[in-house]
């Protein structure tokens, strides 16, 4: 445990992923330091969401290993260098330290806002109901939705649903937060309120990996930007470098296309 401080929060080592004949990720290696905010940019189909989903093992990499705070995701290190795949309930235990926010929110429609937030703390962490509720109400206040505690997801706008989804993920007190295109399914006028909440979370020192198409948001919130194309990392570095002065032709092409789309 004492060695954990020396581990990166997220460490991907030569991660590859294929679906049938399609190679989506090609030997990607990427470390995210504790407290670091990393944005992943790239054209659709570049594999950026797949990489994120491999981090909490919603997808299983075909090759390579991902460690979260040194813990090999999906495996038990039986002996140095020998990894045995874990049963799903043990992987579930590993996932508790990783929060995830989805493009399509994925709130539980049969539960109220409050029930959505306290469900996992109650069932997974074994928290008491009073304690979980108190924490949930704090989180709801933080995302500005205290008044909606008893509403059902379908009664909320997309932006409100996504803020609840962020609160739900934070209720597990994760060490790492993953955001999978958190504003892509939102009407344009609702994007801002969700980005504000994500910025707020980043200021709390949370380790975050964000897959996004919001270039200016990525520039503002990230310590580091990774540009992925065709399953490989093309370029990475501080946002001022990758976004404002990209070195690679593919990065430049992508950024100019996104800027044109934003102006249109």
């Amino acid at each position: 445990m004492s060695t954990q401080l020396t581990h990166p929060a997220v460490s991907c080592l030569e991660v590859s992923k294929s679906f049938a004949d399609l190679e989506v990720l090609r030997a990607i290696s990427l470390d995210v330091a504790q407290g670091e905010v990393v944005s992943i940019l790239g054209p659709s189909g570049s594999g950026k969401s797949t990489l994120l989903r491999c981090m909490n093992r919603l997808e299983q990499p075909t090759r390579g290993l991902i460690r979260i705070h040194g813990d090999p995701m999906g495996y038990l290190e039986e002996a140095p260098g020998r990894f045995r795949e874990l049963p799903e309930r043990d992987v579930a235990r590993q996932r508790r330290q990783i929060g995830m926010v989805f493009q399509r929110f994925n709130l539980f429609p049969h539960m109220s806002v409050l029930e959505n937030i306290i469900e996992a703390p109650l069932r997974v962490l074994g928290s008491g109901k009073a304690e979980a509720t108190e924490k949930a109400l704090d989180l709801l206040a933080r995302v500005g939705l205290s008044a909606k505690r008893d509403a059902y997801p379908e009664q909320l706008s997309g932006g409100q649903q996504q803020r609840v989804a962020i609160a739900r993920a934070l209720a597990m007190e994760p060490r790492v937060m993953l955001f999978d295109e958190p504003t892509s399914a939102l009407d344009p006028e609702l994007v801002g309120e969700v980005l504000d909440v994500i910025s707020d979370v980043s200021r709390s020192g949370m380790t975050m990996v964000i897959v996004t198409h919001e270039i200016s948001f990525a520039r503002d919130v990230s310590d580091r930007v990774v540009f992925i194309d065709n399953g490989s990392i093309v370029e990475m570095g501080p946002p001022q470098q990758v976004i404002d002065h990209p070195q690679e032709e593919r990065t430049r092409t992508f950024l100019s296309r996104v800027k044109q789309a934003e102006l249109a």
Partner: protein
Amino acid sequence: MTMQSTATPVQLLPRRDYVTPVLWVVLFFMVLGVVINLFTNPRWRWDVVSQYIVSEQILAGLATTLWLTALSGIVGIAIGLVTAAMRLSKRAPLRMIASVYIALSRAIPALVLILFIYFFAALVPNIEIGLPFLPPLISVPTNSVITQFAAAVIGLTFILGAHLGEIFRGGVLSVDKGQQEAARALGMPPSTTQLRVILPQAIRVSTPAGANDLISLFKNTSLVSIIGYTELLTTVQSIYARTYETIPLLLVACIWYMALTLLAMGAQRLLERRMSRGFSR
């Protein structure tokens, strides 16, 4: 704008419909015919119907029918859930067992199945439990296990379980994939994911078709009269075999089947309303 508001006022008329009034007239005469027959045809024998409708013998038969429905329903739901889980399992042997079971229940007529189970002793005289190729640990005569009641419950449950299994499977498949991903991402183990997230939503979708199946079960209990188990229909049959008052006694059975089915439909609506929490559709 000013141009339009000063123009001649428009008059909007509904579409011409000659068919609906004609249908109303036809319906009126159909209902009239039935009502007149009910009152004037002496062969309905309403006196006999009223004599038997709440008689002790009929109520006892009805109670048996209800008991058979309740027991088969509960066991059937349990088997349905297990069957759905097996068909959706990632383990091939479980999927195969469930598929064969469903295929059998589809292929064999309910009446034949109930007879087959009742006469099972002719095929397997003793039920033995133990390890393959070793002397059995437990051995009992089949006839002592498969009574009329047991054959009735097994037969009805066999059919209902397979049917509900497919309905529940459809319900599970209808739940958005993102739901399971969200639950897994929150660190929920598979059992919690299924019980707390997937199943409540799957049950909601399955309720209309499932309730329909349970109501059908109530009526299908009459099939077990074939093996002489004394439920409502068998009771009615035994009375008219004696008195030859066939129509009035079948009417007694029909009135009870209809009354309780209507009641069950009301319960189904209440259940569906309760389950629609968080869904406006």
